[in-house]
């Protein structure tokens, strides 16, 4: 049995807390199963390009999604399948993007984790690490400008991404503007193959917050209860006018960087340490030990999620691929500003 934040609390089990855990767990489970399906589709050659999985990072990610309101802003990164679902992304959107359906939100123009619905406050990441943070700042700046004062914006980055100039510029910017930003760093100990000690030299990434005048939070990213509590607090503080919050979670990615990578560089000692425990298993143990769910409920949720995923895969596989002859070959929104020379390939 694992030690969790909740165990330390006396009693600790209001109905609301139970419901929060149950809802978070079910999104984690869906995300894990969706990831597994994507991995098997990739191995079967059904997915073009890469597949990037979130295995081991679901507890952290889901805690963001369930702590936000639908009217907030969320800009997830590569390992946020769980947070995406919890924020309201459908399995359909995810699969249409990964399988390249013309009917999906990205219409085959972009793929895998590069998906979103910006109009719904759900931003579509670009690959360049660090680049989304200031964009979230912009959405929050704009909302304040428009008189909306209760919105929070959350975004995620890895330990490696904290070394980008973009990360530092945006964190400073958020602090200067006192924006309700929750910046979540998933420190999974590696940036691709590069271990923490070749990425940064401070003792703890949370220390970065202080230098920018930002509130730091640290959390065990393998512990769902801890993640829910810390993320809930960070989001509430941002919403209450406390300015930007930096949440740093410690965990381990339990998969390759992408499905092409066997992650042979991960130190077995870290794998066997508490960082290497599977957050989904930890979450199950929490639910069972608190009698918030029993084994048969866990099994039926799993079956339900598998069915939803399988049905959606079958549906998406029947959907049309994008047609280059029907494609609008322009990146300009203004119809009167589009160039139409044959040389431009239009």
């Amino acid at each position, binding site marked *: 049995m694992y030690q969790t934040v909740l165990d330390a609390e006396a009693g600790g089990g209001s109905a609301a807390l139970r419901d929060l855990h149950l809802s978070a767990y079910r999104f984690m489970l869906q995300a894990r199963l969706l990831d597994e399906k994507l991995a098997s589709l990739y191995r079967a050659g059904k997915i*073009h390009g890469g597949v990037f999985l979130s295995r081991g990072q679901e507890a952290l990610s889901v805690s963001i999604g369930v702590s936000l309101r639908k009217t907030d802003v969320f800009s997830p990164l590569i390992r946020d399948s769980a947070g995406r679902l919890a924020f309201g992304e459908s399995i359909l959107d995810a699969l249409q993007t990964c399988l390249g359906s013309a009917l999906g939100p990205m219409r085959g123009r972009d793929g895998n984790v590069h998906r979103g619905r910006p109009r719904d406050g759900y931003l579509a990441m670009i*690959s*360049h690490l660090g680049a989304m943070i200031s964009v979230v700042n912009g959405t929050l700046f704009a909302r304040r400008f428009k008189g909306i004062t209760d919105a929070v914006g959350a975004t995620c980055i890895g330990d490696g991404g904290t*070394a*980008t100039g973009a990360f530092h510029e945006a964190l400073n910017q958020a602090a200067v503007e006192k924006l309700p930003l929750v910046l979540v760093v998933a420190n999974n100990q590696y*940036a691709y193959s590069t271990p923490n000690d070749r990425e940064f030299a401070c003792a703890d990434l949370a220390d970065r917050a202080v230098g920018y005048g930002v509130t730091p939070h640290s959390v065990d990213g393998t512990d769902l209860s801890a993640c829910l509590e810390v993320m809930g607090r960070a989001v509430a503080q941002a919403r209450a006018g406390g300015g930007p919050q930096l949440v740093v979670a410690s965990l381990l990615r339990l998969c390759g960087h992408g499905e092409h990578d066997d992650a042979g560089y991960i130190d077995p000692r870290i794998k066997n340490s508490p960082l290497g425990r599977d957050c989904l298993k930890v979450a199950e143990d929490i639910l069972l030990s608190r009698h918030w769910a029993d084994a048969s409920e866990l099994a039926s949720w799993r079956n339900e999620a598998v069915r939803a995923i399988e049905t959606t895969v079958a549906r998406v596989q029947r959907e049309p691929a994008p047609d280059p002859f029907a494609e609008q070959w322009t990146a300009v929104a203004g119809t009167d500003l589009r160039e139409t020379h044959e040389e431009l390939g239009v």
Partner: protein
Amino acid sequence: MSITYLEAIREAQAVALRDDPRVFIYGQDVGAFGGAFKATKNLAKEFPGRVFDAPISEDAMVGLAVGAAIEGLRPIIEMQFADFSTAGFNQIVNQAATLFWRTNVPCSLTVRLPFGGTSGSGPFHSQSLETIYAHYPGLIVMTPATVEDAYSMLIAAVAIDDPVIFCEHKFLYYHLKAEALPSEALPIGKARIAREGRDLTIVAYSAMVHEALAAAAELAPEGWQIEVVDLRTVKPLDTDTVMASVARTGRLLCVGEAWPWGGVTAEVIARVASEGFGLLDVPPQRLNAKDTPIPYHPNLWAAHRPTARAIAAAARKMLRL
């Protein structure tokens, strides 16, 4: 024994490290891991203290290389993908490119850009950036199309006293093979006639050379003899070789995988049109990627970039004129 384009790049770096103690390699995951594409495989082991993992800090990676160049070292920077070099753009174009002109101190460094489209890679892992770098005075921009050139040009890049943007095409990494590595090479800045012909000149570089050669082969049974010029470096641009070829054929088609607007193909056509207008029997044409970001889906991607088929079709139109 055969060697791939990617292995040639690794070998060239091994040679540079072996022959010149001033050379070091710096980039994300280039150390023990050997790089995202394995272009530095085993180099950290073979050359201890010469190959360093960088944080994800492209701006600082290039800045460090400029500082090291000022101190007389010869850094090779690996960008994980060319697309991410834009995060180091300022240091490349404003620092590295201007140093010699401003201070008379040469800035000898090489930035390796794994570039170009591969199916399914999408808008941020497929870009061709030779044009924007070539636009800035002070940079040398190399675009090798063959295993031999990948090898000899990278060795040359490290030896050159100017900052070199070395564009290595990801599509060629594994596909392209040669029997052996060359012991000599054409000088840098000199284009190569990749196939001789007398009816039409196709000017191309990097992966598009192979599409152009395939198009030439497709047109041969129809009786057309197509000449293919491989630019090798887009800056400097070997206008003389292009002009001499157009003088033989009277027809010019320029092919580039990059976007059309203000691109290398536009530059070639501008030069030929202004200096060799009288050599042209028909209006010169160019074929580029379409003017949109690079699509993820293979169906769209295949239509977005020039292919042998599209090149042959464009050539046929010009040949009928």
